[in-house]
């Protein structure tokens, strides 16, 4: 921190002419200064030495400077002022800094003696200075902390066209009797802009002693002067001004009409504050009752507001009357003001008015009462729910819970039995918003109500509240005597259920009374299983039910659910169903297998695809077979490629082959690329083969440049599609720019340290991998299709304020010098074979090859470990090894 540039927010700079202005160099508080040549050092302890020591570098130096300077006495301040020059006339930057800093320093509490002495010196300087620009600077400093000691000097400037404004603003800031008198005394001889300035100042200071002189300007032909006078009269609030302000508010038209009316109402407020409450209110009432034109709505609103300021709560009865107006904005203003009053007495007044109010108003009042939060209004809100008018009932339903909370639950549950749909929906919405688990339990109790509509509504509200813990209670309603309730319960279980709802749902499935219920139960069962984290517990109830003597539709539903279980027992049961005499059961089994959630059904599906007597089942099974190949977690991409090739051989229809090619696009090895490439020349499959080949190429290009380039060449010869050629170009460019980037890493972390934040804070924290302690290293392949050379740590952890370590093995055919190119977001540290070789403590974005590090590779295996720090946002690493001149380094192999 320095003393420099503490600009005064009060700064006013008025320059006399454009010519003067153009002579300036300028900027901020030191506007207009130019440094000149350096002088020899001044003797210690002198004013000259103190000034030369500026700028200060911290708060302590600042205080020392000020104390030492003030200790030199008033003459030193005079000397400083004497050194002020007009901007552009010399170097007084440090002098200005000094005076500005001193003004702020002496203004602090408990420095009255220093303050007075300092400003007396400034006043003396102001009196003798001729330059208006220098005087303006001195006035600005006076405004900071000056007082009566400078008033006489400022008063002399109030007739000056250039200095009246800053001098007046300083005097207003002092707001003392003496400073006010100075402005008042200057008013009679003022005119034009100066008069406007002085009138406004006297208004701001509410100087009633200037009333007579101000009044003289109230009918001035100069709009600016007249409005300034009206402003001043309104602020002073003397009753003698009433007619003048009333006439202005009435007669002034056009743009200034709003301002004149504003002054009139401000006058009313000041009048009331000065003791004449009745007259003040009379003005408000007059404005309210006469400004009824739609354009004047804001005046009516303002009149109500001023009345409320004058009367406080006592305005309420009048406010309530105004609420009967058709003007929506005025009504809203009345409501807003009324809402600001609290207490039982006010509530009682509302209640009394409510009885005779129109339906619309009753509705508005109910909402208002709910917002005010006085519990005494609760009976009114409950009564409103039974009002004969729908608009009132709706308002009561929407508002009652805000005031009554859980106590409104029973009434709102009752409202669910209303005939009007809008009211039912409003009641549901209100019930949904009531806070707390107790409220959820109370609403759940509505499931036992005697009215079916309430039981149904309560279930729907529980769904909207996401009340998973109420699934058991909802399941009971699944056996309700009323079908609507049963269906609502099944739908609710579908929305809320998980593995713990499966037993109940199987039971409900077995006892379902209608086809629709069976369908809903099946849907709920599937949704619950899909949402389950562990489906193993579902196996037993499903298989037990399947072994029971259940109807065909139920059997089909159970088979459909088994696909989520996916166990051997589930698979056996489903396979057995394939031999059923019931075609519906066989169909359900095939469909369940086709959507089996793991790869265990692969061989069954393959067999069905080849041998089923039904064309539909063969198609379904074939699609399921191809899908399950992709799910085979025990098979690597190579094995999957082999399986896909078998699938293509098995396929009898072109669309099935196309589907296999689509699935193969997800694999990432050069064998699958070769397999896909076989179909590039097959006209029926060419489009799909190109898409798959490009996708695989994009994923493997950096490690298999030659193979990919060969396929790209073929594609380029086959296709003239713009998007295809663009993708070919992109992959070629990628190979060119990013070949040899390391794509397989082992990652450890993230690591954090309490109290260490941001990338820079974590850079030097030594975590376990640096200490060679045992940590878990996870193998990670870079796989972003767009940037396969980029290791994105955010995919591993979303941690912030952390560090992560990535390591890899590089095999070199011989001992050799090389260049390791690294880019990282954020900072980075690099070790080669356990030796620290490079560090960059930075909070930077990722740029490939940002750091080019000279390293030496040993013959055989080399370990490269890189630490990357993270504050927040992106968190990346990319690295490759090149020859020392940046060219490709042959013979080096990366970890796979």
């Amino acid at each position, binding site marked *: 921190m320095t003393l420099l540039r503490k600009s005064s927010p*009060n700064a006013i*700079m008025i320059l006399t002419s454009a010519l003067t202005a153009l002579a300036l160099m300028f900027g901020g508080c030191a506007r207009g200064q130019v440094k000149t040549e350096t002088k020899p050092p001044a003797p210690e302890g002198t004013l000259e030495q103190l000034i030369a020591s500026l700028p200060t570098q911290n708060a302590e130096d600042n205080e020392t400077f000020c104390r030492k300077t003030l200790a030199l006495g008033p003459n030193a301040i005079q000397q400083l002022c004497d050194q002020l020059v007009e901007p552009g006339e010399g170097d007084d930057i440090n002098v200005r800094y000094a005076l500005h800093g001193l003004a*702020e320093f002496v203004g602090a509490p408990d420095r009255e003696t220093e303050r007075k002495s300092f400003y007396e010196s400034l006043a003396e300087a102001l009196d003798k200075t001729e330059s208006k620009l220098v005087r303006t600077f001195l006035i600005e400093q006076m405004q900071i902390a000056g007082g009566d000691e400078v008033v006489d000097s400022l008063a002399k400037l109030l007739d000056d066209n250039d200095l009246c404004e800053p001098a007046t603003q300083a005097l207003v*800031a002092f707001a003392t009797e003496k400073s006010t008198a100075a402005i008042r005394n200057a008013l009679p001889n003022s005119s034009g802009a100066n008069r406007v300035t002085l009138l406004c100042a006297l208004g701001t200071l509410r100087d009633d002693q200037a009333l007579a002189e101000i009044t003289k300007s109230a009918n001035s032909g100069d709009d600016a002067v007249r409005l300034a006078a009206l402003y001043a009269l309104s602020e002073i609030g003397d009753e003698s001004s009433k007619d003048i302000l009333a006439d202005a508010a009435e007669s002034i038209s056009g743009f200034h009409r709003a301002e004149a009316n504003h002054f009139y109402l401000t006058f009313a407020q000041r009048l009331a504050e000065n003791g004449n409450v009745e007259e003040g209110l009379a003005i408000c009432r007059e404005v309210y009752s006469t400004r009824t034109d*739609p354009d004047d709505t804001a005046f009516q609103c303002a009149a109500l507001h001023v009345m409320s300021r004058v009367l406080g709560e006592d305005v309420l009865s009048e406010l309530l009357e105004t609420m009967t107006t058709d003007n929506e904005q005025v009504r809203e*203003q009345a409501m807003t003001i009324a809402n600001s009053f609290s207490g039982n007495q006010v509530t009682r007044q509302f209640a009394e008015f409510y009885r005779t109010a129109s339906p619309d108003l009753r509705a508005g009042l109910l909402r208002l009462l709910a917002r005010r939060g006085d519990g005494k209004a609760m009976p009114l809100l409950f009564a409103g729910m039974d009002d004969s008018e729908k608009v009132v009932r709706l308002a009561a339903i929407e508002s009652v819970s805000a005031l009554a909370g859980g106590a409104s639950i029973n009434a709102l549950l009752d409202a669910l039995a209303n005939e009007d749909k809008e009211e039912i929906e409003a009641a549901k919405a209100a019930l949904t918003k009531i806070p707390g688990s107790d409220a959820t339990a109370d609403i759940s109790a509505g499931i036992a109500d005697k009215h079916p509509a309430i039981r149904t509504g309560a279930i729907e509200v529980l769904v909207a509240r996401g009340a998973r813990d109420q699934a058991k209670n909802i399941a009971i309603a699944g056996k309700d005597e009323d079908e609507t309730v049963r269906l609502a319960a099944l739908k609710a279980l579908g929305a809320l259920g998980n593995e713990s709802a499966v037993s109940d749902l199987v039971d409900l499935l077995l006892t379902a009374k209608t086809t629709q219920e069976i369908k809903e139960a099946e849907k709920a069962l599937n949704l619950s299983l899909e949402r389950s984290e562990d489906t193993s517990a579902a196996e037993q109830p499903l298989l037990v039910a399947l072994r029971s003597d259940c109807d065909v539709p139920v059997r089909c539903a159970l088979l459909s659910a088994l696909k989520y279980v996916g166990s051997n027992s589930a698979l056996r049961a489903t396979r057995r169903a394939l031999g059923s005499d019931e075609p519906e059961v066989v169909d359900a089994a095939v469909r369940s297998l086709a959507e089996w959630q793991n790869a265990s059904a692969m061989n069954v599906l393959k067999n069905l695809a080849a041998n089923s007597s039904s064309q539909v089942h063969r198609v379904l099974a074939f699609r399921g077979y191809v899908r399950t190949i992709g799910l085979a977690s025990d098979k690597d991409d190579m094995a999957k490629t082999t399986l896909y090739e078998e699938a293509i051989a098995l396929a009898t229809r072109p669309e099935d082959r196309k589907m296999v090619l689509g699935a193969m696009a997800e694999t990432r090895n050069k064998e699958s690329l070769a397999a896909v490439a076989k179909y590039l020349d097959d006209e029926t499959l060419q489009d799909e083969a190109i898409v798959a080949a490009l996708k695989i190429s994009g994923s493997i290009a950096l490690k298999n440049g030659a193979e990919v380039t060969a396929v790209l060449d073929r594609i380029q010869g086959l296709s003239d599609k713009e998007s295809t050629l663009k993708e070919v170009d992109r992959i070629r460019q990628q190979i060119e720019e990013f070949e040899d980037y390391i794509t397989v890493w082992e990652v450890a972390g993230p690591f954090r340290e309490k109290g260490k934040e941001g990338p820079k804070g974590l850079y030097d924290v030594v975590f376990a991998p640096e200490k060679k302690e045992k940590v878990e290293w996870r193998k990670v392949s870079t796989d972003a299709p767009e940037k396969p050379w980029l290791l994105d740590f955010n995919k591993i952890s979303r941690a912030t304020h952390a560090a992560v370590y990535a390591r890899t093995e590089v095999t070199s055919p011989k001992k050799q010098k090389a260049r390791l190119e690294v880019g990282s977001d954020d900072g980075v540290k690099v070790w080669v074979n356990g030796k620290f070789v490079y560090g960059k403590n930075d909070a930077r974005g990722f740029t490939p090859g940002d750091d080019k590090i000279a390293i030496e590779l040993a013959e055989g295996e080399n370990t490269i470990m890189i630490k990357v720090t993270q504050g927040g946002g992106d968190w990346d690493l990319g690295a490759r090894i090149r020859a020392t001149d940046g060219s490709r380094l042959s013979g080096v192999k990366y970890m796979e």
Partner: protein
Amino acid sequence: MGNKTQINGTSLSRRRFLGTAVLGLGAPFVVPASALGLNGTTAPSNRITLGCIGVGGMGMGNMNSFLRFDDVQVIAVCDVDQAHLNAAQNRVTQHYAAATESGSPSGCDAYEDFRDVIARDDIDALMIATPDHWHTIPVIMAVQKGMDVYCEKPLSLTIPEGRAMVNAVKRYGRILQTGTWRRSRTNCRFGCELVRNGRIGKLHTIKIGLPKGYQIRGGDFGGIQPPMPVPEGFNYDFWLGPAPWAPYTPGRCHFNFRWIMDYSEGYISDWGAHYFDVAQWGNGTDMTSPVSVQGKGVFPKEGLYDAAIEHHIEYTYANGVKMICSTDLLGAVRFEGTEGWVHVDTGPTGLETFPESLRHETIAPGEIHLYESADHHRNFIDCIKTRRETAAPAEVGHRSAALCHLGSIAVVLERPLKWDPEKECFPDDSEAQRLLARSMRSPWNLRAL
């Protein structure tokens, strides 16, 4: 200047027309379906008519946002820079010309003096995107006239100006939306809801990181700048308005004004206005301010720009929460509690948390749900129609801006300051008290409420 009306002139009152006009049966002219809103468009009588004051960078952006709405019609644009004005008028005209086939309206008048816009009786609302020192006067004049206002952030240049705007809006029953659009961002709302509902335990610290230095646009204006002739078509004196007179130089005005204390407060108010606003939201202190503030800063040693280039400010709220705003902290707003933290407006999703699982939490029914708005400009228009409070109403905008101003004063004075959030004054420090307000250059005057 084309289409300019005099500030004392009168024009057809739209509200008067709407209040009295009745289309008689058998009217002797054909009313197009679009005029009645029968072809899917909004009938003119249901459109909000909008005037745009200040149509440079942010103003043009805001105006474009409003042009998206079928129920809004921009009928006036205003700027002291003719180039901005022409661009805005052309933009509006072209927009409506493209829509004319579907029956949308056309006609947008251009003005140099904002008072000419406020003088019109057929404008419902104003968008004000002038520099900070030019917010208060047009806002107060507009609400006195009965207009609703969308005003850019920071709402005010000083705390008394902000209070005057709040009072005026309240007195005249107007709708005001502050341009702190993070109030309409899901990530900010959700982050604040996590804090308000205790997901990070008890909130104890809020950290706001702001950039250092300046981001200067439009040229190299670093260092001392030479005075230059005012370009033709730019009413520079009007641009300065209530601010102290200073010679013209291009680096002073458009966009870069924010680095000069006469018109703004540097990053403390430029980005601070956004982040303080989020902090207030998450802290649940929308309607109040801290009880103490202390700061220090570094200011440039020369040149045109004089706002702090580095700063460290500490605020303390009555609820015990400490808020640190510093150029040495990570960007945006971080709420720290006894059991975790929420960092709003950072990372790929605009929200980072610890523990990370907080990001996937849901706010249950009955917990604190903050004001929901998905589109800041749309919210303003909807609130004009419903008279409901906006996402960032005057008091909220004022309190957020007040944090910028308190911080700036603390950085200048470098001593602990007590603040009375009710009376909005420094109770024990008359010097700090004087720094609260700024004088206005004649003839401009804050005829405060």
